[in-house]
């Protein structure tokens, strides 16, 4: 159900050198192609992209690897993409490029047991609050989210549906589920 893809491993295979820095557009495009090839052969529901072996991530590479992967909707199918192992500066690079494209992705913090996932990129304040609510409370209806957030039901429904369209929460009938990450 969950496939972890180690970006450091793909980088070493792609550039055939012991680099830990994810730099340049051609490198990023090659890594994205490898991710897409891996996912094409997988029936996983969640693709967990693990950046923990990566030292430096520049903007060009963040754009090629993360933003363009999210934009390639057809290749993604019904799959959810989650990032993990990111450092602060890598958060910043990904946040910047996703905001530029009005995209968003969920990222697991280093201490995932105690902290929930966070959203990187372009997300409205309502959607961010609704995302946190789902991650904290687990599967719920829009009415339950509205009650928890003190919002009108329609506001919670809009926020949660917006998250579902962007594959930041899963839907099952009237229920909105957090992403499957463990």
């Amino acid at each position, binding site marked *: 159900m969950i496939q972890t893809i180690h970006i450091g491993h793909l980088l070493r295979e792609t550039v055939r050198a012991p680099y830990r820095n994810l*730099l*340049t*557009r051609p490198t990023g495009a090659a890594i994205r192609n490898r991710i897409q090839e891996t996912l094409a052969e997988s029936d996983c529901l969640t693709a967990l992209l693990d950046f923990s072996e990566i030292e*430096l991530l*520049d903007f060009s590479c963040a*754009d*090629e690897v993360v933003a363009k992967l999210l934009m390639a909707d057809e290749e993604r199918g019904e799959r959810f993409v989650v990032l993990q192992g990111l450092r602060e*500066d890598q958060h910043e690079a990904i946040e910047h*490029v996703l905001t*530029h494209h009005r995209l968003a992705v969920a990222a697991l913090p280093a201490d995932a047991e105690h902290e929930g996932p966070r959203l990187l990129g372009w997300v409205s304040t309502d959607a961010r609050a609704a995302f946190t609510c789902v991650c904290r409370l687990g599967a719920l209806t829009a009415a339950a989210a509205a009650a928890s957030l003190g919002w009108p039901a329609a506001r919670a429904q809009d926020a949660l549906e917006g998250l579902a369209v962007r594959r930041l929460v899963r839907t099952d009938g009237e229920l909105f589920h957090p992403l499957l990450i463990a």
Partner: protein
Amino acid sequence: MTRVIEVPATFDDRSFEQFAAGFGSWPPEEKVLLDARGAQWASPYGLLAMLTAGQAIAEAKRDRPLFTVPTSDDVKRYWARAGFFKYAAELFELHGKVPKAAVSGPSDVLLDVTPVRATEDVHEVVEKISQGASRILHGELGLEMKATLRFSMALSEACQNIVEHAGTSGWVAVQAYTFRRRLGRRVVVIAVSDAGIGFRRSLESAHAKRFGDRWGDGAALEAALIQGVSRFRDPGRGQGLAFIKRFLDQWKGKISIRSGTARLAIVPPWDEDVPLSEHLPFFPGAQVQIIIPAQDAESR
């Protein structure tokens, strides 16, 4: 006939214009001699400017230019240690004794003169600089540790501009030194230069129409640095320079880009440079300089 171009005694981004004016039209019709005998000091920007001139003349298939090396032993040693003569010997007929580059311990040269020809070179540049950058930026300049990573990102993006846009190869060098007159503090300077098509030609097909009569080297620099446009239609492009600007704003740094006959700078409060200079002497390709100053006690 030989056109003699005197290398400024102190060769940096300011005296560059004197150097560029010496060539007249490009490519120069006559054989060229760069006379560096009187040189006392050159910034990375100055060193790369000389190599870029040599490269542009070679690519224009003109006679191999001559180069008379500095008289000062100290200057010669420093330029050798910065890796200048290694590449100058490929582009110029050198006159004068050149010392071998000394292999020494830590120095102010964070990254010696390094060619940027392909994507792999950008990886090499960033790998090479990572340890030295931390020592200088954090240890000497008082920037946060995370600034080292941002510095490397800025370096990567600046070098990628050559690979992606210049249409030929280029050079990069990084050095730390004290800006006595302008700032009175230590700085780290990244210089990136290429002999390629320049910003105007790179952006012309996609953006010239929008600017109408205003289109030129200055407008092209504004489009790239201020508006973040790129020649590619891909909407993710053009973010590299935007990031560099943001990074420099945070650390009160400076970026200047010269291309063709114009030069555009984002000027920090400590500097008195003009933001846009146009109608300068033509010089091939693009020359980028990024300056990051030591942080004052208050901001540490």
